């Protein structure tokens, strides 16, 4: 917090106000709301997953496939962020999963405030699992805490395996990396070993799951990863 008033010795300030408590974190408004979301979701024991990736890595398709497999067993909701259109939410709803679109109007990431507002529109009572599908971008969303329990980064085999070193903060702040579009691995110069090594140079605790949403490979493992964490969240008193 800036506490200039306490530093002030005369009406006219002079020289440098040099003291640690003059620093102010520029994202503190976001972090404040993120903490409020975290508290609220703790009360309702809803597992919150922030899904991030570049544009076109298969976030929405993964949401649909996950919903198809788990919707009978759990109450699942999806908040989906995009610069324009409601296309992604429509696709997810068509698969029978409740979704709400957050149109950011050109903003390149979701902020906690947008999630909070969306949560006021969407009834989350009894929700076991809330996905927040972020705007497709590996840069800005890395800086914004949305109050999630876990951050999951998708990287498609078609993107190239050099992404972790190019966008280190995203991989540093994620718990799980999903290599998607694995059915295309035979056709593209992408090494799962290399991408795993680079990502774990940054974050040695990062878990890795390789999937193909279209063929179904790895989806079972991913769903199991989720179910374990839904169970954990329920146990929190």
């Amino acid at each position, binding site marked *: 917090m800036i506490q200039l008033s306490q530093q002030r010795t005369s009406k006219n300030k*002079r020289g440098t106000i040099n003291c640690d408590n003059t620093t102010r974190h*520029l994202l503190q408004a976001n972090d404040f709301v993120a903490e409020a979301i975290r508290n609220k979701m703790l009360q309702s024991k809803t597992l919150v997953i922030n899904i991030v990736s570049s544009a076109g890595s298969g976030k929405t398709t993964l949401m649909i496939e996950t919903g198809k497999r788990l919707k009978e067993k759990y109450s699942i909701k999806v908040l989906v962020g995009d610069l324009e259109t409601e296309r992604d939410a429509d696709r997810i709803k068509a698969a029978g999963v409740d979704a709400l679109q957050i149109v950011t109007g050109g903003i390149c990431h979701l902020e906690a405030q947008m999630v909070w507002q969306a949560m006021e529109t969407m009834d989350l009572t009894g929700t076991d699992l809330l996905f927040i599908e972020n705007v497709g971008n590996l840069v800005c969303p890395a800086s914004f805490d949305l109050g999630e329990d876990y951050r999951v980064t998708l990287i498609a085999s078609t993107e190239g395996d050099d992404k972790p070193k190019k966008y280190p903060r995203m991989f540093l702040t994620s718990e799980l990396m999903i290599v998607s579009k694995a059915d295309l691995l035979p056709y593209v110069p992408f090494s799962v070993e290399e991408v795993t090594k680079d990502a774990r140079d940054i974050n040695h605790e990062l878990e890795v799951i390789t999937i193909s949403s279209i063929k179904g490979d790895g989806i079972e493992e991913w769903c199991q990863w989720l179910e374990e964490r839904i169970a954990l969240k329920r146990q929190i008193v």
Partner: protein
Amino acid sequence: MHEMSIIQQVVNSLNSELSAEEKYQVSNIILHLGELSNVQPILLENAFKAYQEASADYVHTRLTVLQIPVVIHCDQCGEDSRVKQYVFKCNNCGKPSTNLISGEELLIHKIEFFDPFKLQ
């Protein structure tokens, strides 16, 4: 990323603390930007210039951006290491660590004021 909105955030922070008279006396705003903050100093400086031109506010104020290196703390041997090439390992014992001491900053570190006796 979003440099303009960061500048707006800086200005909002200052405006909420300073009177109109005090605003006029701000000579320098010093920001700390971590290397992981995904913000480019030069773009931020340009955004500040654009803000000054558009708003005619803080026109005599400089913006100084200091980049803060990525440093991790090793839980095993207690050493602090500067992270190079985004390999998050202790330089002393080699143990991986994501225990960040610095590098994610996006802070108003300090503001400086003109000496009122020398002003004008």
